[in-house]
């Protein structure tokens, strides 16, 4: 099966680098989205966090991929603050724990990593699909990845489907009225705006696709 491409520590490092580049490029956009229905710091938060993650991974001397994810998550928790810091931080830590000490992993395990990350976000933030949060992008992406891999798609195809699902989940937040996070304070005024956290989540998913392809 062509989906049996092997990923390893380099994949994780490259994923984090790709996120760093992507959120930096989209920083102003994320700030703007957050200014409309939040407090205008989401872009700055993500950039600060993933800059620190890249630095932390650079300083690491050869840990396995799971440990790198845990390190990335811990770094997010200790540098981001806000809602997104503990959410993504716990998500990556939970994802990393799935991999234990193994030095490489395959598509099916990646599904478990992302599923654990999603579970952690939902557990900590108590948000469900439709609440206008990052969950609206993450959950359909995990589902799409699992489904396409199950259908025998290649890892790249499956990650492309996950990326597309994340983006469509992101867009699906526009008409929603927020029920979690700061945007919920706006009540009906949150309708018509795209959720910043769902937007950065879509970026994170596309970054994963690029990282896996480069492996």
């Amino acid at each position: 099966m062509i989906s049996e491409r092997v990923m390893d520590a380099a994949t994780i490092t490259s994923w984090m680098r790709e996120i760093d580049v992507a959120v930096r490029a989209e920083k102003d956009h994320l700030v703007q989205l957050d200014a409309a229905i939040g407090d205008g710091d989401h872009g700055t938060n993500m950039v600060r966090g993933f800059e620190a993650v890249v630095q932390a991974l650079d300083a690491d001397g050869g840990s396995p991929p799971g440990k790198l994810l845990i390190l990335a998550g811990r770094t997010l928790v200790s540098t981001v603050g806000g809602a997104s810091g503990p959410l993504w931080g716990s998500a990556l830590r939970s994802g990393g724990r799935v991999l234990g000490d193994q030095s490489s992993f395959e598509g099916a395990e990646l599904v478990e990593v992302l599923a654990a990350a999603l579970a952690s976000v939902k557990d900590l933030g108590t948000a469900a699909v439709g609440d206008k949060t990052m969950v609206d992008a993450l959950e359909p992406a995990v589902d799409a990845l699992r489904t396409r891999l199950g259908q025998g798609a290649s890892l790249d195809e499956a990650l492309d489907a996950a990326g597309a699902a994340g983006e469509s989940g992101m867009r699906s937040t526009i008409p929603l009225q927020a029920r979690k996070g700061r945007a919920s304070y706006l009540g009906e005024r949150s309708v018509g705006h795209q959720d910043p956290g769902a937007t950065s989540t879509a970026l994170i998913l596309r970054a994963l696709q690029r990282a896996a392809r480069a492996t």
Partner: protein
Amino acid sequence: MAVETNQMRKFLNDPARVVKESLAGLAAAHPDLVRYDAAAQIIVRKDAPRRGKVALISGGGSGHEPLHGGFVGHGMLDAACPGEVFTSPVPAQMLAATKAVDGGAGVVHIVKNYTGDVLNFKLAAGDAADEGIKVTSIVIDDDVAVQDSLYTAGRRGVGATVLAEKIAGAAAEGGADLAKVTDTVRQVNERSRSFGVALSSCVPPASGKPIFELPEGQIELGIGIHGEPGRKRAQLASASDIVDVMVEAVVSDLKPKKGAKVLAFVNGMGGTPLLELYLLYAEVDKKLRAAGVEPVRNLVGSYITSLEMAGASLTVLELDEDLTRFWDSPVHTPALRWGV
């Protein structure tokens, strides 16, 4: 002498260092009261930890000064954890603060109800428990502009935070145990309601742009403290009409006893002159009396702010004997001081 970075009507050197440099200034101005642990980015009461005293810490995004750093000192907070502007601090700060102030009698975390603050404090409380420190957490959620907690992140924590820090701080200073101090925070929160309005937004240093644009002659009703838009926008009305809205929102939700003695807190958002805050207080005092409650204590000034936002909030706390006594107890912090 122009610098590229400074095009936004703000006194700063580097937008990324605003919080750190300001905290250093706070400590330089008040070395008798606080010290600044720059590595952990926390403000700690000079004489912490105090053996046997329950400690109080709070924290949240910066940009709300004097909250929280300005409330560290005798009879109020033992430490504050300031995050970046409008961004909640990280668990490491809270853990460092908790460890720095724990005198063996336990530590109370006063948490404003924002997803970021709540999640980060939750992680920190877990870490502190792992280190064997007794921690209790109380979430402050007094803002009646956010109505329904089933369909929202719940009410925001605003003005009641200041009152809880003062009142529970006095309880702790007076020797109350962890349960009593915790319960005092909870009581202040339960007996307080707030409502805020804005006449402008504000400019976070990191983005350099106003969070939203409010045309002159318009008012945002039901704002929080992050320069964000409120529940709705309306035509700007007279101070009297605006206070009608605020008092009605607060009193109808608080439902104080007929003739209740209350503390009325008229808070400026940072860009509203004292001239206007006292004008608002005149209206508040009158209208609270008309609503059947008696303002026996008050606080007028900019104590929980949104940078330079033009706006104000009203917090009403229904007092009892204990809370009144704790309010009147001595306090000595950079921003609030009496009796010493």
